[in-house]
């Protein structure tokens, strides 16, 4: 996973979240069916895709899906 489009595909295919690229900047509390279990599932998938660990403390600071994406692809 490298691009934002990859990220959206992953959200739709692996987490069954009905989101588009336009939704990434929205607050997590407004994402349909979003909850802590989805957060875990997303982080787990991202770790698998990127081969890097994501500290939960950092992820909990994320306020949108875009923030999570930036954490995952940060150099």
């Amino acid at each position, binding site marked *: 996973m490298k691009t934002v489009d990859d990220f959206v595909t992953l959200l739709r295919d692996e987490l069954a979240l009905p989101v588009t690229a336009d939704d990434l900047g929205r607050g997590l509390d407004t994402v349909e069916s979003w*909850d802590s279990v989805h957060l875990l599932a997303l982080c787990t998938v991202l770790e698998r895709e990127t081969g890097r*660990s994501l500290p939960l403390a950092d992820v909990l600071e994320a306020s949108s899906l875009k923030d999570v994406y930036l954490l995952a692809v940060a150099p």
Partner: protein
Amino acid sequence: MTGRDVYIRSAASALPGPPLDNAALAERFGMDALWQQWVDVFIGTASRHLALDLDSGKLTVSLADLAEEAGRTALDRAGLAPGQVDAVVLGTATPDRLMPATVNVVADRLGIDGVRSFQLQSGCSGAVQALDVAQQLLRSGSARTVLVLGGDVIARFYDLDTDLRATAPAELVNYVLFGDAAGAAVVSTEPGPGAVSVRALFTRLVGLGREPGAVLEWFGPADRDSDRPAATEDYKAIEKHVPAMAGEVLEELLDGLGWAREDVDLLLPPQLSGRMTRLITEGLGLPDAEAVSCVDDAGNCGNAIVFLQLERALARLAGGRRAVGISIESSKWLKAGFALEGS
């Protein structure tokens, strides 16, 4: 009702093996630090006991093993012999077999015979349902002493080959919420040393038209290849409804007894997960009550929960202290509660 007083004379529990902490589960399932941190933050359950060898994947003990141990301990603590038991009631969602009923296997092992026995197919409120049956037997005058048992072995629902990274949320939570245990209580119309009085106890089905919040399947030769998941949980419905239902049970108990909130010395709250139980306890608004919980160490152990709480609570009720217990079953939605008073 005849007005006969009902007493809980003893309580006991049996837990399989050593506690398994989140690190041990993470290691077994190949999960990393993030997963472990997530369990700590969002589930808040530190450990649980499983009747399962994580290396071999084999079940280590049965429900009958655990219930026998708990039942024997409860009888010893009450100072009663098996021959003094007039009835046995067991609540479980996970009997060892569909037949013979586990309750009768346990009775046999304890040397109890020639009495009535009942097994309830029940969930997290099963202990209170079993106590309710015992209470009715005692109040009707047809029994003086009832051995009440409850427990679950959910270890058989663990698929150690599963990839938790690819597991749906409704199944994933089951791997960290639950634990195996059995418990027992001796309930009688005759008080003994350390007995507490049952001042109120009720169970009520409130599932009309409601979807189940939790489902456990069983399979036979005709459908064992079914791809439906064996265990699922609608955790969102549970998070939404259980706190409110717990509040309703508390109000009903206090109103019925004429107790004020300040009169409650001990609270035995629903044991969903460490985090949920803390949220519910705070929401109930009983500032003077000490919470008696076991979920942090033992997980949500289904039909055993209330017995584990009673075991911890009974001695703390000496001197006329008062306790309220609340149990909510989310499978097909039941409310249950009880109130106890020490002597």
